[in-house]
């Protein structure tokens, strides 16, 4: 079946900035949904709206993944759920003594998992400067050296 080419046409103009915005929005929305599912008291959008002193429609918008969250809103969410919901690369290093993404060369990306363990992952496509998201499965699958793999899995 013939498809209109609007999505493909738009994809040519998309930058990593557009993708980061949307991917981050979805990740954050997913995190909020998770927090709602495990919090002892705040389990619904209505509970969250009351706790954050916002309207339900604002909460609903946050959960769409296409919402421009402000630092103010993120801080309120952290306060309400009583935890840090965002972990920057440096914060992650301090917490886990690891670097999540350190750089790229050619069409390969270098990931430093723990000290002295470097893994090379192929990039998804040559237009991306570096791979946008790396799942744990990607990391395990890409580990060629058995001792490291066993170390990580243990």
């Amino acid at each position, binding site marked *: 079946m*013939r*498809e*209109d080419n609007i999505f493909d046409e738009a*994809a040519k*103009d*998309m930058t990593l900035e557009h993708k980061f915005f*949307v991917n981050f929005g979805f990740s954050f929305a997913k995190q909020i949904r998770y927090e709602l599912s495990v919090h002892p008291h705040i389990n619904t959008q209505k509970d969250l709206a009351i706790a954050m002193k916002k309207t339900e429609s604002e909460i609903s*918008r946050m959960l769409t993944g*296409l919402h421009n969250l402000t630092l103010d809103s993120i801080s309120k969410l952290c306060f309400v759920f009583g935890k840090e919901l965002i972990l920057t690369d440096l914060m992650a290093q301090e917490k886990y003594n690891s670097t999540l993404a350190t750089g790229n060369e050619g069409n390969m990306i270098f990931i430093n998992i723990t000290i002295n363990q470097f893994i090379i992952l192929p990039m998804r496509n040559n237009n991306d400067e570096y791979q946008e998201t790396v799942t744990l499965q990607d990391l395990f699958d890409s580990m060629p050296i058995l001792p490291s793999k066993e170390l990580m899995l243990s």
Partner: protein
Amino acid sequence: MKFFGLSLKENIFATFECVKQYDKVGYYTIKGSTMPISEFKDFYKRMSQEDKDQVLKIIYWLSVIGNEYGAMPDYFRPERNCHAVPPPIEITQQSIAMRLYCYLVDENIVVLFNGGLKTNNNPEKCPNVRQYFKKAQKWAINTRDLIIQRDKTRITNLDDLQIVYA
């Protein structure tokens, strides 16, 4: 058509067209028989001139929904009989926001209509989106009444589907 001095308005019909097929969602749009391009294409062309950045975010967002999540109602704004893709920018902060009206047949099939930059919380009071909002309401009701046959995310009786366009 004139009939004994009375003006009887003839219905113009619209057919459905496939925009993009993803693993979890098939996106469709409608095209009026008297219109040169489909509603979604019109939205894309007009809005790309107004704010291409927002258009690209919305399209990428639709592609992520289509590939990974499915068209769950939580990801869309309910707008009476239809839905809308929500704004990437808070209306209260910048006083403009893009709306793309659509109809969720279910989580696997979405019909994209048209939209614009909304300047008022009430779409019926916004000169930019009023016409698209009203049409989307009507088209959504008409689409709801159709019998849509499908194979997962693909509408299989596309040629049989049409609604009153105007």
